[in-house]
């Protein structure tokens, strides 16, 4: 029963993990941009939701749309400074610049909020469901977040599959040169995708804030989670919800069976395992399908490999 409880709560937190991965996968898959500061964007969403709920007395979930809007604006400002100059310059530069951005944002949070933990206000509502003689507890904030995430990812999926603009984005993802040749404005589409990815980060942050605590140093861990979920799903939006949920369940069960701090170690162990299993020359590759390398990376070997394939 304890195990069942932890599976259920893992599934519920998995929804938000899927949203973390979704924003990351959008920017990585479509722009070939590795954003190590993605986790810090999420933390920004958390702090915005926290301050907003302190100030207005509303729940962080109700503030989620506003937080997402703020992140859109922030991303629109950050794009010309951080993303545009590094887009076709290879992964090393992107990693260094976004690591610096992460440092910068973390220091900014420290200056504003100091290094304390901040928890959402008020008592967390928990619903108890009686099954036989045992009780299943469901945190309402987690459940609402899960529902919101499912709604948003479904809407995003439909948007990408069916709307004209979504088709443009997918065209740029699968073949940027071809997209440019047929007259798409690749730069503007990259801009829009970066905004979309950062908006996802903001939404995820606001949802996370409704049931968990925030501190300045969360950024790196959240980036790892986002990367992990997106790599597990092979950058495919279709499977990202499943891998988010899978990850949530693994983390929650590892936390219950061993210990909370082991769950953090388990995250990284799973991450190494996933990278090894998905590597292009892994003997287990046929089980999962290979990593799809970003096409615009200046990594010579990867670029040459892509050239041979196409």
């Amino acid at each position: 029963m304890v195990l069942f409880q932890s599976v259920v709560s893992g599934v519920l937190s998995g929804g938000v993990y899927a949203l973390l991965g979704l924003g990351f996968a959008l920017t990585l898959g479509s722009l070939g941009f590795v954003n190590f500061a993605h986790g810090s964007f999420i933390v920004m969403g958390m702090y915005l939701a926290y301050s907003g709920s302190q100030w207005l007395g509303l729940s962080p979930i109700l503030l989620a749309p506003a937080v997402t809007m703020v992140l859109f604006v922030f991303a629109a400002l950050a794009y010309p400074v951080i993303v545009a100059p590094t887009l076709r310059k290879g992964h090393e530069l992107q990693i260094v610049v976004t690591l610096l951005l992460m440092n910068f944002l973390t220091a900014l949070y420290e200056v504003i909020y100091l290094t304390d933990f901040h928890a959402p206000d008020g008592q967390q509502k928990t619903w108890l469901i009686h099954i036989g003689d045992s009780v299943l507890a469901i945190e309402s904030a987690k459940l609402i977040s899960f529902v919101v995430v499912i709604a948003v990812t479904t809407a995003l999926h439909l948007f990408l599959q069916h709307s004209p603009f979504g088709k443009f984005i997918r065209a740029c993802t699968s073949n940027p040169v071809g997209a440019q040749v047929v007259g798409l404005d690749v730069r503007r589409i990259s801009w829009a995708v970066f905004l979309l990815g950062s908006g996802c980060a903001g939404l995820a942050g606001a949802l996370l804030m409704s049931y968990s605590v925030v501190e300045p140093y969360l950024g790196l861990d959240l980036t790892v989670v986002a990367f992990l979920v997106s790599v597990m799903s092979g950058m495919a939006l279709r499977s990202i919800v499943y891998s988010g949920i899978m990850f949530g369940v693994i983390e929650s069960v590892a936390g219950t069976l061993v210990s909370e701090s082991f769950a953090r170690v388990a995250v990284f162990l799973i991450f190494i395992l996933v990278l090894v299993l998905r590597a292009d020359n892994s003997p287990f590759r046929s089980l999962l399908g290979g990593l799809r390398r970003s096409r615009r990376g200046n990594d010579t070997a990867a670029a040459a490999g892509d050239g041979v394939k196409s």
Partner: protein
Amino acid sequence: MKSRQLLALVLFAAAIAFLIWLPNQLNRHWMSVLIGTWILVYLAYTWNIVGGFLGQLSLAHSAFWAIGAYSYVLLSSKLDVSTAAGLAAGVAISSAYAGLTAFISYRFDIRGHYFALLTLAFSEIPAKLVYNINFLGASAGLHITTPSLAPQTYYYIALAMVLGMMGITFLLAHSRIGIRWIALRDNEQAAEAVGINPSAQKTIALILSAALTALGGALHGEYLHLARPEITFDPRPLILVIVAVFIGGRGTVLGPLLGVVFLRALEVLSSALPVPPGRLDSMLVLVESGAGILLVLWFARGRTSGSLLDFLLRILRLQIQKKLAS
């Protein structure tokens, strides 16, 4: 050409003489700033072996660093074995760990940002595990109980280690192996075509770099007289060092020194800013990383990436040409 080499040698000797004379003139605060700077410069040189010469963006170095620090502090505080044994244990464990990291990354051909994330995982696993190991003091960490040495001693040890690393970097840059590594960085396929084995070379470089990094970690542990998870495993010095190598000039002999000294100077200058108490450290990081972003982007704006070293050399050359013209 001969006279220029002589000039460089004379300048180098003068700089060393100045640095040896310097500590007697400084108070405690400036000594700690300088020692901290030398320790970072040392880390920059060891990271430069992998990140500069080979272009492998390794984030596992904070684990190699911490392994060195923990082995040294553990052996010299709790078990009371000789200093040499502590250093040797750190180097051995760190090399073995680097070997494991290299095996997994290169056997499965994990590269680019996947390599960066994989090495991040390798640095975070021990960082999270150490909280659960009572033997290593869990979250309280370990302390060395013997009294610490005079700041001058630490200064000279750190200076000697930095000079040693500069020597190693110089030898690497002028030997076949260093040239092989730069060839691999610039074009892996071409390098492979002329008979360089990428995974073997990268593995050697990572293990060498990890062994040297562990020595730096041991010095850091000895200097602070402790090893504690949030200090010893702090990823921020490593990020600073990576940026310094990028700004200063990757795979060069003077680049890492220039980069770190530049960023530290910025930090010292910005510590004069009026900041509410208790937030000074964060403010320094804020200024440093903001300036770092702008500088890295500035140097990367052209088709080929520049560096502080290139910039200084260009100015120097212009001055010489002006002198000759007049």
